[in-house]
């Protein structure tokens, strides 16, 4: 197969929302979800679209899957335009939009697959053979889950069935929106292994969206970081890490009563440290602040951070100077408004 598997060019999407102003009055508001998103996915690679909630990942996936029309721009899937040839596009993609729903509860896994296979025109022995194949590939046959009612499935089994449905018609392109969201670690690992196998062994183009940096770093050949509707940076994980060369990530773990929201704590730290490349998240048994510091200034920043956090009533548990990761790239490019070496918009 030649050319890009997926090519998005200048995708723009605006949503109209209505904010209530009083009992009868509503005010029209336009939210620009995508502001000119461009990227391409090549055959045989796992491509990650990485971004926080509300960054535009799902909107991008829906446009590429022909479920949503862009207001501007176009996307081509296996050479077919999502605007002009939606039926041809749908024939060539397998999509997973959510792993926890999307099936008939009172039907078994196999019956659900039969329904969707019939909608795709499969019939007779070919239909049964294909269902057996995909059930085996995703491991549901081995788990004896194929003939259980969907309502009895665990989340891990639901995820497997969702992937099985996406592969029913053996599409050359797989598009998955947060495929490991909510899965326990073993199920998430198996799902990742499956996706990598699809790309490496079968030459499929696999596009995943995630906000899990670890996952993106582990399975993606290339990653695009999307923030506020724009591609902030794009490249291989190594290329992206070069964007934070000369900067050192300082990780501070702390605990205590959260009097304010986490984002307020982050804002206060940013303000008092005068550093914008900083992210605070909730972790097991406390909180973690990840701060990108110019090399050579680590010690000063660590001492100052400990002072500030202690002053806010937190106990600092551990401080560590880490190796740069994709998370640091993410913090860097999303905090400085998309100034990546290979930025795309």
């Amino acid at each position, binding site marked *: 197969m030649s050319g890009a598997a997926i090519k998005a060019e200048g995708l723009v999407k605006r*949503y109209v929302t209505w904010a209530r102003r009083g009992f009868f009055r509503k005010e029209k508001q336009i939210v620009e979800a995508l502001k000119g998103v461009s990227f391409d996915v090549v055959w045989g690679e796992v491509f990650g679209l990485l971004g926080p909630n509300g960054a535009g990942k799902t*909107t991008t996936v*829906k446009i590429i*899957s*022909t*479920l*949503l*029309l862009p207001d501007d721009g176009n996307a081509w899937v296996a050479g077919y335009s999502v605007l002009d040839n939606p*039926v*041809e596009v*749908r*024939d060539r*993609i397998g*999509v997973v*939009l*959510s792993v926890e*729903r*999307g*099936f*008939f*509860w*009172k*039907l*078994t896994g196999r*019956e659900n697959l*039969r*329904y*969707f296979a*019939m*909608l*795709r*025109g499969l*019939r007779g022995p070919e239909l049964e053979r294909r269902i057996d194949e995909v059930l085996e590939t995703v491991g549901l046959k081995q788990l004896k889950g194929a003939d259980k*009612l969907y309502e009895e499935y665990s989340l891990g089994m639901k995820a497997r069935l969702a992937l099985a*449905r996406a592969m029913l018609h053996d599409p050359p392109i797989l598009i998955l929106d947060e495929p490991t969201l909510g899965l326990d670690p073993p199920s998430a690992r198996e799902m990742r292994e499956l996706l990598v196998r699809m790309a490496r062994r079968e030459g499929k183009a696999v596009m995943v969206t995630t906000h899990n940096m670890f996952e993106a770093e582990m399975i993606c050949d290339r990653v695009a970081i999307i923030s506020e509707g724009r591609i902030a940076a794009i490249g291989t994980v190594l290329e992206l890490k070069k964007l934070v060369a000369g900067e050192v990530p300082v990780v501070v773990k702390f605990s205590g009563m959260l009097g304010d929201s986490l984002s307020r704590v982050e804002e206060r730290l940013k303000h008092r440290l005068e550093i914008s490349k900083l992210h605070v998240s909730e972790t097991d048994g406390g909180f973690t602040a990840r701060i990108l510091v110019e090399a050579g200034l680590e010690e000063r920043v660590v001492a100052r951070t400990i002072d500030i956090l202690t002053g806010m009533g937190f106990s600092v548990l551990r401080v560590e100077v880490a190796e740069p990761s994709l998370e640091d790239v993410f913090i860097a490019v999303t905090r400085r408004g998309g100034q990546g070496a290979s930025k795309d918009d």
Partner: protein
Amino acid sequence: MIDIARAEFFANLYWMKNNKGLLVAMVLWPYIMVALVMGLGYIFGSPEIYAARMGVRNPVLFMLSASVVAMSSVTIIDTVAGYTLYNRWLGTLNYILLTPIRTPRLLIAAGLPTALFSPAVTVSSVMPAVLYFEGLSGLVNLVLIYFIIILGMVPLLGISVIAASLLLIVKEESNIINSLVPFLLLVSGVFYPVGILPHALQLVARAVPVKYVVDAAKLVSALSTETGAALFTVLYILALMGVTYNLAAFLFVGRVDAKAKAKGVD
């Protein structure tokens, strides 16, 4: 179209197999409905008065047939108009729209198995009562009524498809179905003559296919040379409505589909 109908048919079949309670409810429904209507009827009058007013010989039998018509109509509206809503709730709508089937075809073909299935189950459920009251000739009439119901379900399919496509773009989803079902039953005169309705509603009733199915059911139960001619008129009306409503639905869904895709389907 055949692929969609086949998929929906098997999904219905699997659903029934895995939901025996639903099947029992479908079989019992006409009897429960008749008991309810008869119970209420006895408070205000008698079966004789009812038979005279409705112009039927056997009120119980008529009510059983009427219940079959009502049940089939409600099921088809619920299934087809609620198709979008139901699949949206389950999260299956996007995956159905992701198949290479065009939305107008999908919405029209998806209701076909229900249009055949639901009347078949309810007709079978009243068969013992019909056999008891009317013997074999009643059974033949019932089979005839079954085919008339199916003919009547075709235009109803068109109306339901229009409602289903509206659900692709509006937010107050369930309100459409919640008001459509009682309204269509109100003006169709399933359990009472349309003549007792206000004049405006009588005019509306002329555009509702269920009314003609009820008329046809009455004519079948008193089949003669005169009623036979009237029956054919009713059947022509139903066939015409079937073509008109479904054509309108096809055109309507095409327009709504483009709007829904611009807005996004959840």
